[in-house]
């Protein structure tokens, strides 16, 4: 009961503050594991034809996503959806656009095993990693094992991904009371709240904590074959339902939406307001919202400086 009261109190506090929370400045990961994970993340050894690394589609130095509409993976084949950012992915309540992975551990297996991405199976992967004296030694030093399993490879990558946080954005500093927003940024944030963007884009990741239909108000291009929530639940109404994406570092992750159809942020804001809110925004409003969204760009993860 005491705990319950605490939870209620904390909820009230959150409300009393803002429905968005700041990213902590420390990721709290095991640096050794994360650095090893980083190496694996950057290594094409994880793809069958040694062509593709995780980094190929998740440019962690530039928003953590792909600038292409869909990524190109194994055998130069195209993926079926716009690659989401890995930055702050740890704060998503589920992984993938349709939330089919409950956490990063499950998620990592996806692209590695995907025939059009890395096209790897754990057997070959283990064989390759164990052949590499470099990796063997690292895993031995860090995990104390003589044989590297797929699970350990995943663990290292996940540890790296957990380190991929972008703290100290202007907005986070504002939340912490360290820095004030400019007038137009503030106005943008008010519109963001007032028009209900915040209803879905809230929490630490400003999104990433619920599913929502693409086009709640006005139907949005129903005749597509993107892997949506329907693929997971089989419920008809879940057609075109996706995980609400994070808005952090949003200026860096164009093109936008699961289909990469919005090439610019302005386009994306206008489309979202129309289809999901039933609101036609004024140009000035769009501008202000974008000013606000720009304050969500954080610092590069410190792990990227680690050797």
């Amino acid at each position, binding site marked *: 009961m005491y705990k*319950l009261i605490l939870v209620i109190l904390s909820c009230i506090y959150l409300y009393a503050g803002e429905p968005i929370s700041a990213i902590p400045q420390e990721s709290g990961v095991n640096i050794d594991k994360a650095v090893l994970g980083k190496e694996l993340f950057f290594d094409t050894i994880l793809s069958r034809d040694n062509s593709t690394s995780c980094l190929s589609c998740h440019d962690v130095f530039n928003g953590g996503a792909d600038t292409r509409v869909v990524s190109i993976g194994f055998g130069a084949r195209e993926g079926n959806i716009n690659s989401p950012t890995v930055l702050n992915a740890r704060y998503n309540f589920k992984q993938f656009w349709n939330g089919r992975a409950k956490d990063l551990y499950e998620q990592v297996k996806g692209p590695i095993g995907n025939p059009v991405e890395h096209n790897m199976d754990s057997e070959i992967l283990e064989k390759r990693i164990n052949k590499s004296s470099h990796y063997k030694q690292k895993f031995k030093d860090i995990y104390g094992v003589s044989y590297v399993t797929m699970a350990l490879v995943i663990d290292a990558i996940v540890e790296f991904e957990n380190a991929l946080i972008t703290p100290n954005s202007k907005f986070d500093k504002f939340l912490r009371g360290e820095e004030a927003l400019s007038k137009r940024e503030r106005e943008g944030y008010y519109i963001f709240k007032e028009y209900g963007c915040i209803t879905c884009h809230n929490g*630490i990741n400003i999104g990433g904590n619920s599913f929502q239909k693409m086009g*709640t108000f006005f139907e949005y291009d129903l005749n597509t074959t993107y892997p949506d929530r329907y693929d997971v*639940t089989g419920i008809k109404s879940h057609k075109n339902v996706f995980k609400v994406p994070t808005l952090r570092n949003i200026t860096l992750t164009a093109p936008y939406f699961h289909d990469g159809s919005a090439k610019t942020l302005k386009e994306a804001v206008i489309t979202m307001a129309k289809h999901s809110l039933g609101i036609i925004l004024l140009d000035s409003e769009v501008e202000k919202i974008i000013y606000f969204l720009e304050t969500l760009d954080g610092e590069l993860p410190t792990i990227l400086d680690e050797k």
Partner: protein
Amino acid sequence: MKLNRLIFLVLAVGIILAIVLVYFYLLQRDFTKQHREFLISINQLDHSQRELTNIILENSLYTYNNQDEIAKVTRSIHQDFQNLENATILQSKAYMPVKRTLVHLKELIDENLQNIEEYLMINASIKNSLLFLTRYVDKAKHLKEQDKDLFIEAHQILEYFHNMKNMQNLDYLDNNFLLYSSSTDASTQNFIKNFNMHTSYMVKKYPHFIKITKSIINNEINDYIDDNRERFAKLSLTDFKALDTFALVLFTIFILVFCFIILLFIKYIQENKKLLKTKKSLEHSLIYDQLTNLYNRRAFEKDVFSLKMPHLLIINIDNFKHINDIYGNKVGNILLKELAELILLKLTNAEVKVYRLGGDEFGVLFEDIDPDEAFKIAKHLEYEIAHHNFIINDLELSILVSVASNNIEPILENTDLALKLLKKDITQRVIKYSDDLNLSKDIKHNLEILKFIKSAISEDTIVPYFQPIVDLQTSKIVKYESLVRLKLKDGAILSPLEFLDIAKRTPYYHEITRIMIEKTLQVANKYPQYRFSINISMMDILNDRLVDTLLENLQKNSASASKIDIEFLESENLQDISKVQNFIKEVKKYGCKILLDDFGSGYANFSHFSKLDIDIVKIDGSIIIGVDIDEKKLHMLTSIHKFTEGLGLENIAEFVETKELVDILKDVGVRYAQGYYFSKPLEHPLESDVVTL
């Protein structure tokens, strides 16, 4: 059943019980742990579920809400359910009913989470549309003036939606939600268009929204969890009862075994007491004499060994055998008892122990006492005992004791020796042992002699020596006395004085006599011109086998047999006169003559002459030696000669060592003589019978 087996049985039961107890402890510990584990996980799930419902309520209440919390609690619900599903206790069959319900619980939870997902989607759009409309109506200030009715209606409709949401009541849906105006004003028509777009959107969404919201708020999960918890409680009650029963049974068995052990223990103690008693009495009889209650000889041997400076007195009753013979053993025993008491009474020194060492022998053992002091005590004891009147069954008895005192090792042997010595001297009653008594040396000497005798017999070195007996009338040798000698390995010759007494106490004695008979007869065969005399003792005559051997030998050598004289010792007590008479009769059949040796040395029993058929008398050397200077001896010699002459017996004088003696003997009329004057005993008889002086 034997106590031993019982103990093992109880031990086995105890071990089994201990194992069962450990088993029970583990069982109940595991059960309690598992029971708690289940309750914790189900409570956790219950709590998370309530928290989720609460957050959803909050979410629906607040315009802006951070949905991260929902994701977080959803994750913990999944985790809690997994914990519950993995609860160890649910693996057991008894809890299958509870486990089965988890499937349904999972369905309920999944359904609820699905509903929440659904709710969040629909709630967002409804919230946003309401937000939009509220703001939109607020902003439409121009309507307030231009078309107040439309403005009020818009407000009314907005209120319906708010009420519907807050009351979760769809009844409002019956109302009109669309605005209409005939106004041609473009902004009014644009307002109506946008307004109607959102209201119709909400009217479409509201039934589903209310339904989903209700199903989340009114979800049965917590009730179901409660039911489940109750079901679990009922099931576990059976287990608790079983554990209780188990504990009760164990406790009962434990008490029983405990009682049994106590019983056994009591029995053991009783048994032990009995054993102790038996042991005590055994120990008592081991070291105590039953009759006198003094320590026994065994105890003495033990005690004397443990003492550093022992001093022993041995008190021996003189002629105790006579008391037994005369008064009977009963009186003898009582006397011994009373004597024991008397000795104890007279010994005031506490450091002293008194023993019964033998039938009529008592020992008093001191430690580290001045020998003179001990001797004083010995004398005192002897005096007290000799002057004590023992009154036994109206009999008044007094006894004499001999007391030997000694502190020189070997204690018992030396004291015994001293006592033996003391017994020979009837004038002494108390003796103190000292090495001067030389008693133990005698024994050593005796043993040595015995060894000589043994080897002499086996190596045939017992030989006869022959001392001539001379006819004083003719001065010629007529006889030889055959005297026993023992030749040692180094050539030395032992005289019978040195070994015959010892031999007499052994079976070798008769063997020696036999050898002498055989060897003398052989020599007699060789020297038919002489007679030979052989010494036969009373002991020999009493031995039938020896007598038979003698007679056999006489028969074999019948020619020489008639030249043999048998010498008896006059001093010997002729115990069985008829046997002696018979013997004389037998030997005389072979022509042997009977000679009475050493006449005049003992009691000079004249009755011998009437009872026994004696032919010759040898006058004892003690009379012969000094006869030339002693008037009395001369008179005795003359008397014996006259007496024997009267009976028609011949005389032989022994120990004749001088010419003077020979002259006197001739004067008195003694016919025969032997002695060093003529010759010492010789290895062989002389060929010539002429006496060479």
